[in-house]
């Protein structure tokens, strides 16, 4: 297919076939008030040279040369060059989604590899071909739990990413289901188990928790899973920092794992596109949303890949589909797949250890708001100065500080959420520590 505008000659030819004299004749049946009676207000065309100048100028506005300690769902990790090299190959880039799936064996192979790696990472038995992002994977996981349990009440921890909870609330708004929240322990920052227990009942479809949670705290999933399972509810484990899975035990206590892969070679890009995941136990496979790639044999007995269990999906099952997502985030998920292949199991563990070590170095000597174990993010109270003032002072030293938490948690209005990754340099971390001790 050519993506070029048609020439005048081609337009005339097409109009002649339709028996029309001009393009205006084609729109003659439209009411006059729906037509624009002036040209679109667009700037005139520019030369290639002018366009290059324009974009160079815009690129120069980027905050180049700044160190960042901002996490909160989007993380500054190193992107191996190989990720872009593979993902920008035409075979992947231009045919990013397989409309005639079985012809695209290469694409299906990478998706199958992706699913396999996600299962290894999460300790689950099946993973789908990816979701739009972590935030949209959460309501999909909740809907899945509701289909499995036949219940319509969702309990979500306040320590789950606030914007993920907003997406969940948006999904629930026009559905029949309800979302309630339970708190976090004021001292440790981990789940308030008593609050969870008091709100759980036989109408609860699922309990949604995040680990490491929004405050960076590593949750103990075992107790939350036991409480949920006692009343027949499922446990959904959410993650925003995929690197943590290189070190932490796979969340096998969970029934569904929903998460975000931005940490795996996906650029922050103003917040997207990212890639999400949903993984679960095999017994729930028919309730998983989205597409699944399976391994099969072709007519000649050769190893081949295919889309499988498609009868769950919208293009076959219409309004009775398990979900209205019937695509996947193939190209972005491919970057994560290459990332996982580049690092491997041992490399990912080493990467996670570096994150842990640097974050704990950064936290050394400063006051922490919560005392539970943390991975690469933690909350600090700002004394004598507002979090915004601390950030402003850091910005002068070419350092992007942490996230002021007041916007999401009024009770933490004096707090900053800080993040260190393998990219954090000692000199910058020392400057941040100084700023917080001042």
């Amino acid at each position, binding site marked *: 297919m050519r993506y070029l505008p048609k020439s005048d000659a081609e337009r005339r030819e097409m109009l002649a076939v339709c028996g029309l004299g001009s393009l205006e004749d084609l729109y003659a049946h439209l009411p006059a008030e729906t037509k624009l009676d002036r040209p679109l207000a667009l700037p005139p065309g520019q030369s290639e040279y002018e366009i290059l100048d324009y974009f160079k100028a815009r690129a120069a506005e980027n905050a180049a040369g700044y160190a960042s300690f901002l996490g909160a769902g989007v993380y500054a990790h190193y992107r191996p060059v190989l990720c872009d090299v593979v993902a920008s190959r035409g075979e992947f880039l231009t045919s990013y989604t397989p409309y005639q799936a079985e012809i695209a064996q290469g694409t299906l192979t990478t998706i199958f590899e992706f699913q396999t790696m996600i299962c290894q990472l999460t300790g689950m038995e099946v993973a789908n071909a990816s979701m739009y992002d972590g935030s949209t994977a959460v309501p999909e996981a909740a809907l899945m739990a509701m289909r499995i349990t*036949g219940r319509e009440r969702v309990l979500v921890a306040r320590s789950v990413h606030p914007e993920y909870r907003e997406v969940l609330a948006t999904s629930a708004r026009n559905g029949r289901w309800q979302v309630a929240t339970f708190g976090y322990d004021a001292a440790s920052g981990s789940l308030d188990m008593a609050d969870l227990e008091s709100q759980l009942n036989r109408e609860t479809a699922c309990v949604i928790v995040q680990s490491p949670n929004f405050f960076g705290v590593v949750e103990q999933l075992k107790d939350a899973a036991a409480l949920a399972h006692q009343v027949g509810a499922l446990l959904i484990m959410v993650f925003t920092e995929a690197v943590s899975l290189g070190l932490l035990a796979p969340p096998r206590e969970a029934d569904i794992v929903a998460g975000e892969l931005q940490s795996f070679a996906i650029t922050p890009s103003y917040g997207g596109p990212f890639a999400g995941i949903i993984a679960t136990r095999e017994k729930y496979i*028919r309730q998983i949303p989205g597409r699944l790639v399976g391994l099969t044999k072709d007519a000649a007995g050769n190893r081949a890949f295919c889309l499988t269990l498609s*009868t769950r999906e919208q293009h*076959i099952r219409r309004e*009775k589909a398990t979900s209205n997502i019937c695509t996947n985030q193939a190209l972005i998920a491919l970057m994560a797949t290459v990332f996982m292949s580049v690092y491997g199991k041992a490399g990912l563990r080493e990467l996670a250890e570096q994150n842990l070590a640097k974050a704990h170095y950064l936290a050394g000597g400063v006051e922490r708001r919560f005392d539970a174990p943390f991975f690469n993010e933690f909350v600090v109270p700002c004394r004598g100065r507002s979090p915004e003032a601390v950030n402003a002072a850091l910005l002068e030293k070419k350092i992007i500080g942490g996230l002021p938490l007041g916007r999401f948690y009024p009770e933490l209005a004096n707090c900053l959420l800080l993040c260190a990754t393998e990219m954090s340099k000692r000199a910058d971390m020392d400057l941040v520590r100084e700023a917080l001790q001042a």
Partner: protein
Amino acid sequence: MNYPENYRYTKEHEWVCVEGDVGTVGLTFHAQSELGDIVYVDMPAPGTAVKAGETLGSVESVKAVSDIYSPVSGEVVEVNEILKDAPEKLNADPHGEAWLVRIRLAGPGDLEDLMGAPEYLAYVGS
């Protein structure tokens, strides 16, 4: 294929065989042959209340997923467990071993609207 005389048949291709106040419900031979290889059967849990003409569950073949409509109103009292692990039995013996659910009838009314075997055979044109 034998279409038992004592079964009643629906236009949506289910059958029901009533003994006392319990109706055994299944899918017709014609339906399974149209669907092709059946790979999954989704049934309601025992205790579920169902209404005649409304969705009872679904049956999934390699080609498509089709809803199963309840021929009668009542409460599901038993689900055929063998279909969970061996859905292909629905292709092999749809009028016998591979029944779907047993429903305790809410009343006797529904059956009169259903077809007898000769009528159903004429309906499917065989």
